[in-house]
């Protein structure tokens, strides 16, 4: 980061809807700690190398910007959902020992074993959704038919939220994660509605507990000073519902699009379904559309990257997808290698804040791919790849539609 380097403007342009920005390679090689300008006009630093991103994310001293930090704003003053702003005061602790306490309390319900136990149920849901899509005839939008409904139904079941309210969750989630589609008044109204909804749901569970996660968390918090406080319960419920829904839904669409974009990939998987596990992690690595701004960290102390000192007070944008294509870490980083192993990609982050739901997301993606390969081996894109359209303005990247036939 020197005064002579040009300022990078986020989000960076790309050639095709599945392509990475060409700029990443140049940045990794020549300017791995770059100065960026955001839609708000504020500036920060952008990391594009694997080792740098991993080192910063793994450092427990730092977290996303907290209220009161003088951090760079992503969206202009009048817009941006709660997940994109810096003044969001969640009751769930963002760092240190308090964060670890919350994380371990909730994390035990997302272990690999628990997620594997959900697999048969997920498979039945995915099969039913595919059958419904097929009954409707080709072409169909795979994202609307399977990508969205599966993760919504899984997270609703897990939390004990009624799946009939999924259109409302979708709207609230979009308003949380969008950079520029809604006004500040609209996102604030959505937050207030969602918060009131979750408060009511918790009250209903308290009165008539079920077998679900929210009921379990309430039960564990019954004794004074144990478990989670009421605001923590509410914010945990809201966070899990949003996080368990939009990200996986978009990833299902992108995964299928990436695998069908070059149909030899699909054929290889049809011939050898044992590649599903590594193929899922490889599309997670190669996804160039995780969201244009990366994961943010606010520096409360100076941080050195290979001799470049980034000063206290800088908002750093960790380019996860750029790091995932770093040739210094991954052989043939630009290629999709369906059997790649090990695959230490950073799509779920790293360190103490690494995605809590990653075993859930991996299981859902593996189930979707298994079911599609088995029931629709003839699946193909119904439009040329270049006609796929990226969703703009989401902190979580995705494609608008994934039209398929079979």
């Amino acid at each position, binding site marked *: 980061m020197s005064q002579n380097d040009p300022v990078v403007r986020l989000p960076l342009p790309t050639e095709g809807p599945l392509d990475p920005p060409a700029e990443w390679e140049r940045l990794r090689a020549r300017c791995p700690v770059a100065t960026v300008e955001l839609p708000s006009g504020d500036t920060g630093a952008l990391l594009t190398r694997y080792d740098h991103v991993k080192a910063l994310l*793994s450092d427990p001293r730092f977290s996303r910007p907290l209220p009161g930090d003088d951090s760079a704003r992503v969206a202009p003053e009048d817009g941006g959902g709660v997940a994109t702003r810096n003044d969001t005061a969640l009751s769930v602790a963002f760092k240190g020992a308090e964060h670890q306490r919350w*994380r*371990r*309390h909730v*994390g*035990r*319900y*997302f*272990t*690999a*074993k628990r*997620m594997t136990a959900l697999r048969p149920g997920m498979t039945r849901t995915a099969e039913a959704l595919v059958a419904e899509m097929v009954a409707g005839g080709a072409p169909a939008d795979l994202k609307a038919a399977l990508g969205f409904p599966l993760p919504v139904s899984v997270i609703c079941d897990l939390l004990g939220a009624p799946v009939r309210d999924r259109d409302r969750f979708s709207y609230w989630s979009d308003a949380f994660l969008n950079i520029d589609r809604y006004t500040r008044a609209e996102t604030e109204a959505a937050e207030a509605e969602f918060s009131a909804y979750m408060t009511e749901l918790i009250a209903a569970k308290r009165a008539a507990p079920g077998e679900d996660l929210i009921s379990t968390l309430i039960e564990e918090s019954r004794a004074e000073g144990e478990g989670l406080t009421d605001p923590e319960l509410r914010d945990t419920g809201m966070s899990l519902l949003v996080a368990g829904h939009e990200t996986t839904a978009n990833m299902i669409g992108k995964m299928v699009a990436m695998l069908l974009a070059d149909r030899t990939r699909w054929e290889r998987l049809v011939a050898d379904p044992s590649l599903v*596990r590594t193929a899922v992690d490889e599309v997670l690595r190669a996804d160039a559309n995780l969201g244009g701004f990366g994961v943010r960290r606010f520096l409360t102390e100076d941080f050195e990257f290979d001799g470049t000192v980034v000063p206290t007070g800088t908002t750093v944008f960790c380019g996860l997808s750029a790091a995932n294509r770093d040739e210094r870490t991954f052989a043939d980083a630009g290629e999709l290698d369906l059997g790649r*192993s*090990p*695959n*230490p990609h950073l799509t*779920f*982050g*790293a*360190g*103490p*804040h*690494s*995605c*809590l739901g*990653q*075993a859930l997301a*991996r299981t859902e993606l593996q189930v979707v791919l298994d079911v599609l390969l088995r029931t629709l081996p003839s699946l193909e894109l119904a439009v040329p790849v270049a006609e796929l359209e990226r969703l703009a303005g989401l902190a979580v990247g995705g494609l608008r539609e994934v039209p398929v036939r079979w």
Partner: protein
Amino acid sequence: MKVTVDQEMCCGAGSCVLAAPEVFDQRDEDGIVVLLDAEPAAGCREAVREAAAICPASAITVRED
């Protein structure tokens, strides 16, 4: 091969259990890693190396003999 885990660093992501279930588990009470076998048999060493490489918290150390 000798395997050690750092339970303080572990973030409970469970990727080691998905990669090498014979060697790693997670505690029921908080999802933190449990080492089932510190000297794994030849048949699962490759999976253990993978688990160490992909651990998001870098909490697994493998020492080759």
